[in-house]
């Protein structure tokens, strides 16, 4: 991807670094014996789940550990200097000038009361001694370099006035302003939408080549790593488990954890009928409870006797490093943690979407022109001149139908209205217009008007498992309630049922007596799922149920949802921003943009042309955790328009790469159907679209 200058001495050398945090009188190691070398111009990915210690490593290099963090052992050498021996004033020379950090949360890293341009100029004046005017010119130049639209306007804005993507670009511009030799990026795109992330990553990889800086890219996202890194280090529970060149790592992971990690994420275009996700059982051990031997031993499918001793880090002869007793057997292919065949065959005859909906289906849920508009607060002036309140059109006329035992995946970026639609269906927000029929009976908009029988049939799984359970009620009490209230069971029957439900979500029955703060995030989500299935609902709305979980836990939750759904023949509306996950789990996928549907397709067709221009852009933006896959490249310009002033005609026209001209602005498109019964909302006829578009994902 970019040039690695091998003959130069490494920019950063970390040797046997051990970092601990102080908890009361205890010192707990967050990172143990970590070593890494970054060559000049190299982009190093540091991958790990939460609690792996990846951010701790980055912070230790920056010397930002804070009061509780202690470097217990090891050495950090930066550009020939021993970083750990520098005092604060010497570090100040290093910070910014030679080493900079792009943090995860752009809003909290910018001063809210100073104009963005001013903040960058100040750095330039301080570090490079520029005068006011030159600093200003240079600022605009840097803003142009990170492709900020309208640099002058951005420079004159305050941080809250610009979008998240723009803020992140500003921070990158800041980090680059002093042309540092080491740039540390700590999850810089995690809080952004995929389309924004894609264009930032693109620009970043171009800049990396131009600037010849070394980069330490910290992330949990294997897809992003595959896109921009040369070499990858995988961290697990504070230990380096594997370190290899990018292609090697993805082609042949040597550590069971890396193997599991790669198998636990669905790839774009894979569906549940073809592939089984490999879930890693268990969870990352807590800081104070790390195993004595191999840190992965409690979860490792290949663990044997010797694994109770800590494996050393072994350098293989082809420049890789791995920390596993059995790596040679894994390398030779005689054993593997990837026992699940990635492919299995489809059977049965295919029917098209429209046939299915009209002839074969048993319609459970039917939405017709559903609208959810939130009025904005009016100013006093507007009240006086009796101007009608402006509205946020969160959901703006959506028609859909769901068949029995079907999973409909609703995919969209933040602000698309996907969550609002789900909430309008279950009744947590009231729709302002349109009809929703459940089992052919119209649902009242307000939750308070729905009877118990309806509530019984409609349940929801929420995004954040940390907030899904009342922290003051035991797991059993939380789960018992819907059974007693909606299913009218006695306390004893309910308790028995709770035990069964816990078993169904693969948790031990004594969990009923635990409090939510005594179980992990993944387990909380299991309990939440169990609670939702308790009344055996006809329709389950799952709102991003895995997005706040670690990758290795996600797979088991997806498998669980799938299994329970099949068993109960539940219809599911699965809402997510993650196209790969939706594509995997759903039978039908609906793509939503600015409160309007853009496309409704069978999941196996979504990844082949013709697709809606917006879907096309989404597909090309999703980071794919496989460097051997060639992805089409379509980047959207600008940001999503505000849902208050939605564009006229086709809502996507402000950003559409296939923009036709006036007709897209003035006239609303019509729904078009392709040969498979998939529907696309666009002025361009499907045949023409199909001819224009190529396959977005190609195996090399």
């Amino acid at each position, binding site marked *: 991807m970019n040039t690695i200058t091998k003959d130069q001495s490494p920019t950063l050398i970390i040797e046997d670094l051990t970092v601990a945090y102080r908890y009361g009188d205890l010192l707990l190691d967050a990172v143990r014996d970590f070593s890494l070398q970054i060559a000049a111009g190299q982009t190093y990915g540091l991958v790990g789940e939460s609690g792996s210690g990846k951010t701790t490593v980055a912070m230790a290099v920056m010397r930002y550990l804070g009061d509780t963090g202690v470097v217990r052992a090891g050495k950090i050498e930066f550009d020939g200097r021993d970083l750990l021996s520098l005092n604060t004033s010497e570090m100040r020379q290093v910070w910014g000038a030679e080493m900079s950090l792009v943090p995860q949360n752009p809003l909290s890293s910018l001063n809210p009361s100073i104009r963005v341009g001013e903040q960058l100029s100040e750095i330039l004046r301080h570090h490079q001694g520029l005068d006011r005017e030159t600093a200003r010119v240079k600022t605009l130049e840097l803003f142009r370099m990170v492709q900020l639209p309208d640099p002058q306007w951005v420079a004159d804005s305050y941080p809250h006035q610009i979008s998240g993507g723009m803020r992140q670009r500003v921070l990158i511009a800041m980090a680059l302003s002093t042309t540092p030799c080491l740039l540390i990026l700590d999850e810089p795109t995690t809080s952004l939408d995929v389309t924004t992330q894609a264009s930032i990553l693109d620009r970043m990889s171009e800049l990396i080549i131009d600037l010849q800086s070394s980069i330490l890219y910290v992330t949990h996202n294997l897809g992003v790593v595959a896109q921009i890194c040369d070499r990858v280090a995988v961290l697990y529970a504070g230990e380096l488990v594997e370190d290899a060149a990018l292609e090697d790592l993805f082609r042949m992971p040597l550590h069971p954890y890396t193997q599991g990690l790669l198998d636990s994420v669905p790839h774009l275009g894979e569906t549940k009928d073809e592939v089984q996700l490999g*879930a890693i*059982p268990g969870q990352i051990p*807590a800081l104070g409870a790390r195993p004595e031997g191999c840190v992965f031993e409690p979860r490792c499918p290949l663990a044997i006797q010797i694994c109770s001793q800590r494996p050393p880090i072994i350098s293989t002869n082809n420049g890789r490093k791995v920390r596993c007793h059995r790596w040679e057997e894994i390398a030779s292919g005689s054993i593997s943690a990837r026992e699940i065949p990635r492919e299995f065959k489809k059977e049965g005859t295919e029917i098209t979407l429209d046939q299915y909906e009209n002839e074969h289906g048993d319609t459970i849920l039917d939405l017709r022109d559903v609208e959810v508009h939130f009025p904005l607060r009016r100013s006093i002036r507007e009240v006086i001149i009796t101007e009608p309140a402006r509205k946020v059109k969160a959901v703006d006329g959506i028609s859909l139908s769901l068949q029995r*035992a079907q999973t409909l995946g609703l995919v969209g970026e933040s602000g698309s209205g996907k969550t609002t639609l789900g909430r309008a269906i279950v009744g947590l927000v009231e729709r302002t217009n349109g009809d929703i029929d459940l089992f052919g009976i119209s649902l009242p908009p307000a939750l308070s008007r729905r009877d118990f029988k309806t*509530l019984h049939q409609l349940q929801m799984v929420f995004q954040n498992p940390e907030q899904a359970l009342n*922290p003051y009620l035991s797991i059993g009490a939380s789960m018992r309630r819907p059974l007693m209230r909606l299913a009218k069971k006695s306390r004893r029957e309910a308790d028995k049922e709770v035990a069964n439900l816990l078993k169904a979500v693969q948790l031990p029955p004594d969990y009923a007596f635990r*409090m939510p703060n005594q179980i992990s995030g993944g387990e909380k989500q299991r309990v939440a799922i169990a609670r939702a299935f308790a009344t055996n609902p006809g329709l389950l709305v799952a709102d991003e149920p895995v997005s706040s979980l670690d990758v290795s836990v996600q797979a*088991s939750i997806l498998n669980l949802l799938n299994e329970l759904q*099949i068993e109960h023949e539940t219809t599911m509306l699965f809402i997510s921003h993650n196209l790969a996950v939706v594509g995997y789990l759903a039978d039908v996928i609906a793509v939503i943009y600015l409160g309007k549907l853009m496309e409704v397709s069978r999941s196996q067709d979504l990844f082949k042309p013709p697709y809606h221009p917006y879907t096309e852009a989404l597909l090309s933006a999703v980071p794919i955790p496989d460097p051997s896959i060639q992805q089409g490249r379509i980047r959207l310009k600008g940001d999503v328009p505000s849902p208050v002033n939605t564009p006229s005609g086709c809502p996507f026209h402000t950003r559409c790469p296939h923009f036709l001209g006036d007709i897209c602005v003035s006239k609303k498109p019509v729904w078009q159907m392709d040969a498979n019964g998939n529907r696309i909302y666009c002025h361009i006829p499907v045949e023409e679209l199909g001819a224009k578009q190529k396959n977005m994902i190609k195996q090399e």
Partner: protein
Amino acid sequence: MTWYRNAGTRLLLNSRVSISSEPLSSNKQSSKEPQREPISPYSQAANRTNRIISLFRGLYAKPSSAIGTTIFLIFLTVALFGPLIAPYGVNEQIAADARQPPSLQHWFGTDNLGRDVFTRVVIGARDILALAGLGTLLAVVCGTAFGLLSGYMGAWFDEGLMRLFDSLLAMPALLLSLLLLGILGPSRSSVLIVIVIVYTPIVARVVRSVVLSVKTRGFVEASRLQGESIPYILFREILPSTLPALTVESALRFSYAIFLVASLGFLGVGVQPPNPDWGLMVKEARVHVFQIPWAMYFPAGAIALVVIGVNLMSDGIKRVWQKSG
């Protein structure tokens, strides 16, 4: 899946799922991972005594809150057992002993009427703590009810109530109390009503802010989807989450209530003579401050001490609970 209505595929898929995803926490694991210490004192919600014990342990872990708590406990004891401790009658006048400086007979001396200052401070403690305590309690109950409803219902109800409370809060507490007492006339029950009116809005605001952040959480929405009634949601689902903030706020309000009662007594619009109210005692003794300063300093000191003590204690409660999340 649904495209291939084929039971074979389904069964196959089904069995694969159950084979590959092992229980998250099999027994093998839980034995390996040492049981984590419960992090928060509420994890043993069932065990209330434990909670209180751990709170006190936390309070005594730091000198400032330890001192505050001790001061409060001493005053509480004095208030509870006042008549047993007091050596004389409250209004017993010993003319011969008038204007005595502190001595073994009269620890805090006597005032110009020959009343024992120590006795009056001790008995006064009961009065003031009871009045301020009851007032705070009522204010907390009203404030919690309003705060819960206002936060949960939102819309015009919230809007109206909060504007009303804002207008009450806009006035300084003392000024508002004087106004109210001007209407109600000075008496003990008037002071009680004043405390409730002055502090209800403050408590309601605190509770409301917690409700606003809690009501959008999954567990509250889940219980709405279960068709729970509003009282159940308010009291079972939401109320427990407000308790930490509410307790801290109550303790703080209590210390200000003591101050308010004393101030009103001092201004002569609160508790009326001859009750041994500390504020009133300061007011009466003020005239003779150069001749018998002890008659003023002791009740004034008592006010200061108890207010500081309760304040330090509420700070301590906040620290203990914030640390435990």
